[in-house]
């Protein structure tokens, strides 16, 4: 009973994590029905069509890119990295929420995560896919990008391990594989549920294949829980390491505006910030369309908004420190960079827009009203999504375009292909999300059951017997 109180009856929380009218059976019925029984909502078709249409920009752009070279983008001298790396970091940041929710919150026994982790993990995987495209395609000769991997070859050449790009390769590929594994392992019991309930033989076979012979025996559960915990333990440092390493791409360089020790924590906080914002951005409409208010409650929204507020403040601290370091360094280049970024340079408005999105608007989250209001929260999250993109723009472009030698300063302007590549990945990401909610249980059926009062009682009883 202690557990239940802790979960549902703390002082301020009036909203539970799951509505009391649910039983074990009703949860399974409701959540498996989205995949198996319920008619796909019409909105799904519209949304999917639009997302799929945008996704087509991606192959088109990539083909054109491979035919012509990355000169079709706006990158130039001195702005060697622009949309490519901005988008990479942005997507990777978004990809942080899933693993954070799954792993860290699991380890911290925050069981409310059970309602949203599946969804967030799927988002992570698709976001990392989008992210991975950019570093691959931004190279001048993508067909040789495999040279970044340490593989035995007749040239006798190894990659250069001092380069942060090399570390990126390891960090991102590890992160992707562990996240994918973690996600899949978490899906196994639900695949079994779907297998048991599916009427369509074809799907039955598919789900049977994917469920790897899960029968739900105690031994299975034991193994499962152990494996899941181990994976969570593995993923946890990755959440911190990936964005730390991504931030090294900048921090290791000596460019004013990049070369800062604050980058790793600041980037990780930013990533969580962006990730939660994206989870909410996708979750809020889904909740409405699929009527999920009973399992993804306002309590969830409130909790996530709180995490956003906290990480948002860390990010703000990062902005302050960047400016402070610039001034305190005594280096004229750093000082100029800060002056130029905030006030003196042609991209000054980007910085102020960034502050509006990431610093000012999210202050509304101090109020419970905004944390629980689905429309307001959706709007605020979108500000953060944009703001986090702008943050990367400010860091990357406005550091590069005004560096050490004034004679080489130049402006940057994206081309149409920069935008099609970016919107293409968004389209791809959304397409994958649409397919995910259609064919996989977007809310973990068995894990949500753990939130039911009955689960707590059972567990307690077992405990007493022992």
């Amino acid at each position, binding site marked *: 009973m202690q557990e239940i109180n802790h979960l549902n009856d703390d002082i301020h929380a009036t909203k539970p994590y799951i509505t009391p009218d649910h039983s074990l059976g009703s949860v399974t019925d409701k959540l498996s029905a989205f995949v198996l029984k319920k008619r796909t909502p019409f909105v799904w078709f519209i949304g999917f069509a639009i997302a799929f249409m945008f996704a087509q920009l991606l192959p088109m752009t990539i083909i054109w890119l491979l035919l012509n070279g990355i000169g079709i983008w706006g990158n130039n001298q001195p702005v060697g990295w622009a949309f490519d790396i901005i988008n990479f970091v942005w997507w990777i940041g978004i990809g942080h929420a899933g693993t954070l929710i799954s792993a860290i919150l699991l380890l911290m026994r925050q069981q409310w995560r059970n309602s949203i982790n599946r969804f967030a993990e799927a988002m992570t995987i698709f976001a990392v896919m989008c992210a991975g495209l950019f570093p691959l395609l931004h190279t001048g000769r993508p067909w040789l990008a495999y040279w970044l991997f340490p593989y035995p070859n007749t040239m006798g050449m190894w990659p250069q391990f001092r380069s942060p790009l090399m570390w990126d390769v390891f960090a991102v590929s590890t992160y992707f594989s562990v996240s994918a594994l973690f996600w899949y392992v978490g899906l196994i019991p639900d695949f079994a549920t779907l297998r048991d309930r599916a009427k369509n033989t074809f799907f039955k076979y598919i789900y049977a294949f994917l469920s790897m012979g899960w029968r739900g025996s105690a031994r299975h559960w034991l193994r499962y829980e152990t494996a899941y915990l181990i994976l969570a333990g593995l993923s946890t440092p990755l959440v911190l390491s990936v964005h730390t390493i991504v931030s090294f791409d900048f921090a290791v360089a000596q460019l004013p505006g990049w070369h800062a020790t604050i980058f790793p924590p600041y980037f990780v906080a930013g990533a969580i910030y962006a990730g939660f914002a994206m989870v909410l951005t996708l979750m809020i409409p889904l909740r409405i369309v699929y009527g999920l208010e009973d399992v993804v409650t306002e309590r969830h929204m409130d909790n996530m908004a709180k995490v956003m507020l906290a990480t948002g403040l860390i990010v703000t601290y990062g902005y302050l420190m960047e400016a402070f370091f610039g001034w305190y360094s005594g280096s004229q280049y750093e000082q100029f960079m800060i002056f130029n970024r905030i006030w003196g340079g042609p991209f000054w408005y980007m910085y102020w827009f960034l502050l509006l999105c990431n610093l000012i608007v999210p202050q509304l989250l101090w109020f419970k009203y905004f944390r629980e209001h689905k429309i307001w929260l959706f709007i605020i999250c979108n500000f953060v999504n944009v703001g986090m993109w702008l943050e990367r723009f400010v860091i990357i472009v406005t550091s590069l375009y005004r560096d050490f030698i*004034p004679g080489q300063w130049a402006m940057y302007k994206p081309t149409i292909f920069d935008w099609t590549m970016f919107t293409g990945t968004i389209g791809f990401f959304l397409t994958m999300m649409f397919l995910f909610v259609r064919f996989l249980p977007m809310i973990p059926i068995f894990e949500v059951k753990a939130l039911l009062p009955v689960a707590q009682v059972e567990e307690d009883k077992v405990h007493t017997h022992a």
Partner: protein
Amino acid sequence: MSSKDRHINFELMRNRVLSEQNGKDFWRSLEELKDSDELQEFVNREFPQHAEEWNDPVERRTFLKLMGASLALAGLSGCVYQPPEYIVPYVTQPDEFVPGKPLYYATAMVMNGAAQALLARSNEGRPTKVEGNPEHPASKGMTDKFAQASLLTMYDPDRSQMVTYRGVTSTWDAFLNNTQPNNVGLKKVLADQQLKQGAGLRVLTETITSPTMANLMQEIVKKYSQAKFYSYEPTGRSNARKGAIMAFGQAVNTVYKFDQAVRVLSFDADFFNDQAGSLRYTSDFMKGREPGEEMNRLYVVESVLSLTGAKADHRLALRPSEIEGFARAVAKELGVSGVQSNYSGNEQWIKAVAKDLKEHNGKSIVIAGESQPPVVHALVHAMNNTLGSVGKTVAYTDPIELSQDANKTPLEGLKELVGEMNAGKVEALAILGGNPVYNAPADLKFVEAMDKVAFRAHLNLYSNETSEHCHWHINETHYLEAWGDARAYDGTVTFTQPLIEPLYQGKSAIEFLAAFTDTQNTKGLDIMKAYWQTQTLPTSKAQAEAIAAMSEKKEVEKKKTAEHGEHGEGSKPETKPTPSPEGKPTVTPTPTPAPRPSATPTPSASPRPAASPSPTTTTTAPVPLPSATDFETNWKRVIHDGFVTGTASPAKTFPLKTDWTSQPPAQVGTGYEVAFRPDPNIYDGRFANNGWLQELPKPLTSLTWDNAVMVSPETARKLGVSRYEGSVNKGGQNFVGTINIDYQGASVSNAPVWILPGMPDNVLMVTLGYGRTKAGNVGNGIGYNAYKIRNSNAPWFGGATASSTGNTHELVSTQLHFFMENRDLIRIRDKEDYLKNPAGHGDESKKFKGDSMYEQRDYSKEYKWGMTIDMNSCFGCNACVVACQSENNIPVVGKEQVARSREMHWLRVDAYFGQNQNEPFGPYFMPVPCQQCEQAPCEPVCPVHATTHSAEGLNDMVYNRCVGTRYCSNNCPYKVRRFNFLLYQDFNTPTYKLMRNPEVSVRSRGVMEKCTYCIQRIQNAKIEAETSDRLIQDGEVVTACQAVCPANAISFGDMNDATSKVAKLKAEKRNYTILADLNTQPRTSYLAGVRNPNKEIPERFKLSTTKEDGHGAGEHKEGEKKEGGH
């Protein structure tokens, strides 16, 4: 079978084969179908590119059978016509020829009449690079950007490739011999003219100094006594000649000796660029500028901002019309008798300058630019006379240009010609080179006049605007394909010899002119030899001794790749004198024009240009007959050397007249004034189709691919045009306002305006050479045509009206920011401060030595390459950039890509103004190649080891390994790396394949590239040194940028060798590195500049004094950017 409609279709052909067999079981050979075009083309393709058949197994088998049959039967058929192709190795390899080793031949490029002596590098018979001829007095091994870029012109696929008659392909023979009235040839015309002593015959040439041409002209005039020769070039020295006529009563050539001068005053003369002897003048001037007590001082009074002005210790910007008054005031102050002046203003300046010049009597030069009217030139002659300079720093000789009437200026000649054409007196007009239809002053209406001539023939490299209006167009040979001669600025006879058989069977000017004499259709070499045989050439020995004596005088700065035998340097075995069988000293082969099989009109067909000697070339006669020995030996010697010693025109004294001094001073204009200048890169328009020069950032503005009207910031405000610095499209070019200019009744519209600080107010500087319509694919339709408003009465400046159009135009520049933002890159100090504390500019480079996370290498074992760039000498001409482009196969990217800041130049020259926009200072120039950092920031960030450090301390770039992450470029604080964002190299144009330096990889798309310190040259020197088991000597490796530099600003060498020039310079107190506080430890260092201002002239701007700390961080304000340390 994707293209059934295509002619070369296998199926179609097979059907034909089968249908023509008339039922026979087999056929003998494909020759039965020889007359079928499709088949011929098909078979000629060794490996058909569009072999659709290969996709279809059945078709493929048939195809192979067919091919097999044709191969098997080829032997039977016997008499197959083989096209002549030299694909076999030499039976007897020429002595000096080693495949893979370049040969150097002395030749010369002629521009505006003056010869620039060159050594052209030939790789397997293809000229691939030009360098200066180190022995030649005018070149001393240096070249200008035009000579460097002329290589690209030679290989330009847009060059005229054939003789045309009214635009229709014709032949040289037809041009000579045709007799049909509607298509009449030269012989017929000449025969008609002979009847009236050539009364209707006119020849219009460019400025000509060639002795052989002079001889031909004489011959022609002998035969056609009424024929007239005119020469015109838009930048021709008409004012100078007129000024000399005013001053001396006759045309005079002035030769300056800047090495003897310590005070120089220039009136609108950009003598670093616009004189025939500019290369030599620059080099001499910079020698006198060595920082120290005795350094020279330069005063410049000018109406535009020029490179010479930027380098001046004191510069005064005046309207063009005001300079005459100013010059009179100075002359009066100097005490030139009879000069009147009513000039007021700048008194302190005038007094101080005059005093300074007088104090250096006999050691000063006053010089005037061509853009100033004759009277200023006359004043200058008088001033030099008063200052006692004549005979010391100024020498007068007879003019080097040829003219029928020396008292007539080229411009007057052109006017006369137009008058005659309008009067119908001209029946046959031959135009040798040049492009008068495009570049004659607009008021002469040259086209209308020329259209009245019944027979018009035009010889040119390009089929240009003039060719369009001529009946006959003859394709000219490039100087690298032809024999010729010309005089250098001082009169030295200089030879042009071909390095390659003419690519398009063109005719040289000499050959063209010879067609007017009795000896029609002779080869250029024969004509030359026929003439020179009548002249006394110095004996071969005398010539060699004279050159040896000359070069001994030179300092040991043997920096050029001297390919002349007598300089015991490493890399030039090819031209060493070898004893002849008779034991007499002779020289190895006179460079032989590399004849090319005649059946292959374009080099594409035979990618391997044969360098075998042509049997018809008499120079290759192995042992000349005794009787011919004298001339032949001497001839070979002078051709080998490229010039004849002792042919410099002797200095003469000319009595100064004074009658001109009474001429009333000209009125100073009010309102706007237009000043015309040749474009700094494409000159008068002749290089419009040269991509290297179009893309070369123009000095001072870094503008590319366009011309603009240069105005001062104040004038721009008045005109109401602006440069929208903040508004950017693409990568960051400028959208500028445009104006319409009305000048002397003509107007040019929509000319973009570039705000150039340092321009005098109310002056609109327009540059010539743009707005071409028939330049070629590169040069057509860019920029505005300033010739449209040029007037024969006021060819250089005059009052004009201008108004803003409200439109904008996109200009692209490689540099968008011209203030240093207090960054201490360029360090310039005053002489006083420098003498007090030579290291006062601050050198932080030593502070950090040894601080590094990574292991410090030891470079003391072998070589430690380093470079210094002297900020005191560099005057920003950008010749080094083209030299680098030529040497390193750097592509041209085009305007749109430059607009995106993606130019590929490995070396750039940054320019920074001091002070603010309204009172600018400088700009000063900073060439920035790769700094070759010892702790290179680019290296640790490359994920694939594509940029690594060599044992000699060079930062190497491995193109093949590069995947193109661009991280290295982001991390390079000097931003010297260049990325192939798209496929910039032209891999398709066949001629460009011939042009490229075979020792440098041609980079493709997606690869980063950068300056390598010309590592190919280092490697060559190393091979050379290793074969003789020694170390590379100082001066053996000369980088391309170093070789070309007329100011000797760049030095390169081994820092481990304490006696090397570079080691000495690095030990100098002026040495510093840029951004040293980043601890990159660059191998390229800079030598601080020193200015020598006159204290009596009020300074608007005070240069820095000594700085206590090496590094000046901290506050800066937009308005008070400073140059130098503080």
